């Protein structure tokens, strides 16, 4: 691995990032999630934390742009340069830029996230069957309003599951219209437009007015890309028009006719012969997650690696089941340490005869029988840079008989006990991580907490201990305050758990009762408390820990947990230690 000259690195661990704008290729939620996972690649192996902020200056400012986009290092159209980032520091340092002349996907073709319909925003399923016909893109068939839609399962005829595809008729991104859809026709500089346009802009982004006259109202938004939006050509972002005429022939789908390189293209008007408007059809695209994870490595201080399989290798290659390479792990831990382990030391140069002498990832991170994540001498693997860490039972989650609180934060289960906490991610399957210090991560909290939950919308984390509660946003904290401020009566005992219920509501449990908290106004609703067993039958009445995990409700008592589906059915009773903690 290589770092930048002078080992440029951040002087603080709790970094912030801000997404300045979004590519029209993907739904904003998908881009946000990809960036969050890309940062998690690095926070999983270091003490670094990354918090998204939505205004002001962040450590890492992220933006999409084409050609010259303001930093003097222009991109180069489709393919070639995909993105770049600057080493740690102030202002533009640390920032990451992505070339919006590329087609951004998750690496395996376009991702069409639906809105409305009855599929809860799941992605389109292509191909799908509708009235016996197969569709491999969104369609307006069956509708009079021209809104493109798709099925979210293989057969609409059978499952009746559907959602609406991105379209300027449904919503716009950014601008100043709060997502309102386009109004066609609209007047701009005296001309009438009945489609999105790039007129008036130099950055090539397609926009529309959200009232009948931009000249008068100045209301506008950016058009999301349709699923058939072309890349490059001379009408980037415009959708294919089918059928189109080319050399007198009619085409109902993309074609490579007329080209010697076999690339698929389509016309963006009904007649290429007369209008000459065209672009390349969507291909697999580039994974915004993989490219972001690489660029964020630069933002943290890593330079390019010459190990072909490493994330920091300069050339793009799509990897389906991504795992961080040991070379990348050594590099980032050289700069920031391993987390709870020793501070970074300068590694002795590795032998140069080739990768087979490098320690494999298994030797670095796989848990040993005591459930810790360290390697010991008896495994016989070379470990040039760190001293073996003896296993300390007080650090071993599997030795705990019970936990003060259990909750899911940023997709990971957190187990709290006496000022320590452990995390377990079913996604990364890297076993239990920790013990970490509660005080380091959430300064100001008492050693023993009773309950905790993360607000789904704002990502703020609430902690409860006795009659007090704290609200953390990153490292900044509000509290302690008395739970009476939430409208919970003095007579209530300690809070023993929380269940997020969507639409900004969280159920807070205490004893055999629960309250419904409106997180936004931080006040419990009228008509509470109510008895737990009114709604949640079949679970222990005075559960010790209540939490939401993987969309199911968990009620704990002793070493057992009762799992309940959103339909309020108990579908499993198991051991906390063996099922949730995955102790051996």
């Amino acid at each position: 691995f290589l770092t930048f000259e002078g080992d440029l690195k951040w002087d603080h661990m709790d970094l912030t990032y801000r997404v300045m704008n979004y590519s029209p290729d993907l739904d904003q939620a998908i881009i946000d999630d990809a960036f969050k996972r890309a940062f998690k690649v690095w926070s999983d192996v270091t003490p670094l934390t990354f918090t998204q902020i939505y205004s002001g200056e962040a450590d890492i400012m992220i933006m999409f742009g084409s050609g010259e986009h303001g930093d003097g290092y222009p991109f180069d159209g489709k393919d070639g340069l995909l993105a770049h980032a600057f080493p740690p520091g102030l202002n533009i340092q640390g920032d990451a830029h992505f070339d919006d002349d590329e087609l951004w996907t998750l690496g395996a073709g376009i991702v069409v996230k639906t809105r409305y319909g009855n599929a809860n925003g799941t992605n389109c399923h292509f191909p799908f069957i509708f009235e016996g016909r197969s569709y491999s893109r969104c369609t307006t068939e069956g509708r009079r309003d021209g809104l493109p839609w798709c099925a979210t399962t293989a057969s609409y005829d059978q499952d009746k599951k559907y959602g609406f595809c991105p379209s300027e008729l449904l919503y716009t991104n950014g601008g100043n219209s709060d997502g309102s859809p386009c109004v066609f026709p609209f007047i701009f500089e005296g001309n009438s437009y009945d489609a999105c346009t790039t007129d008036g802009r130099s950055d090539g982004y397609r926009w529309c007015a959200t009232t009948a006259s931009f000249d008068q109202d100045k209301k506008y938004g950016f058009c999301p890309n349709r699923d058939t939006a072309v890349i490059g050509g001379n009408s980037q972002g415009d959708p294919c028009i089918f059928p189109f005429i080319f050399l007198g022939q009619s085409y109902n789908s993309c074609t490579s006719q007329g080209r010697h390189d076999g690339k698929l293209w389509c016309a963006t008007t009904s007649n290429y012969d007369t209008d000459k408007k065209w672009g390349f059809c969507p291909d697999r695209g580039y994974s915004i997650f993989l490219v972001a994870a690489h660029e964020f490595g630069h933002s943290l201080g890593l330079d390019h690696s010459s190990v072909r399989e490493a994330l920091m290798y300069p050339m793009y290659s799509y990897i389906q089941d991504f795992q961080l390479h040991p070379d990348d792990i050594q590099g980032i831990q050289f700069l920031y340490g391993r987390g709870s382990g020793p501070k970074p030391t300068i590694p002795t140069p590795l032998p140069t005869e080739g990768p087979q002498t490098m320690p494999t990832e298994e030797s670095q991170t796989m848990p040993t029988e005591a459930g810790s994540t360290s390697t010991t001498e008896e495994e016989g693997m070379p470990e040039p840079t760190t001293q073996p860490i003896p296993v300390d039972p007080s650090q071993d989650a599997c030795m705990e008989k019970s936990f003060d609180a259990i909750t899911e934060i940023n997709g990971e289960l957190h187990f709290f006990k006496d000022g320590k906490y452990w995390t377990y991610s079913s996604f990364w399957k890297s076993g239990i991580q920790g013990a970490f210090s509660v005080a380091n991560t959430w300064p100001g909290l008492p050693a023993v907490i009773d309950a905790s939950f993360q607000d789904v919308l704002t990502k703020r984390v609430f902690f409860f201990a006795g009659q007090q509660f704290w609200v953390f946003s990153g490292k900044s904290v509000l509290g302690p305050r008395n739970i009476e401020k939430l409208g919970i009566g003095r007579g209530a005992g300690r809070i023993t758990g929380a269940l997020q219920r969507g639409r900004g509501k969280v159920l807070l449990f205490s004893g055999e009762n629960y309250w419904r908290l409106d997180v936004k106004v931080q006040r419990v609703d009228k008509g509470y408390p109510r008895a737990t067993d009114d709604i949640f039958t079949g679970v222990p009445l005075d559960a010790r820990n209540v939490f939401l995990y993987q969309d199911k409700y968990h009620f704990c008592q002793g070493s057992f947990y009762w799992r309940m589906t959103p339909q309020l059915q108990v579908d499993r009773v198991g051991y906390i230690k063996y099922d949730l903690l995955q102790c051996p």
Partner: protein
Amino acid sequence: PLQSKQQSVVTFPGELVTSLPDLELAESYLLRFGYVTAAEVGAKTGSKHESLATALRKMQKHLGLEETGELDADTLEAMRAPRCGVPDVGT
């Protein structure tokens, strides 16, 4: 099945008509990613050839390619591959 009639090749508007000659592509790649300086690229042909060969060797080593110092097919393919814009060498 064989096409019934000869495929015509069209020049599409807005598309680069010719791709860069290999040597030009190599020079711009080596310059952009820090393997060679502008002065070396602009030097007289004799020393230029030498410095390009050295730069090529450096790039091939950096990217894990076979170090030939020549503009072989693998090296050209690497130069055309999609990649990160941060230079490989230098600040």
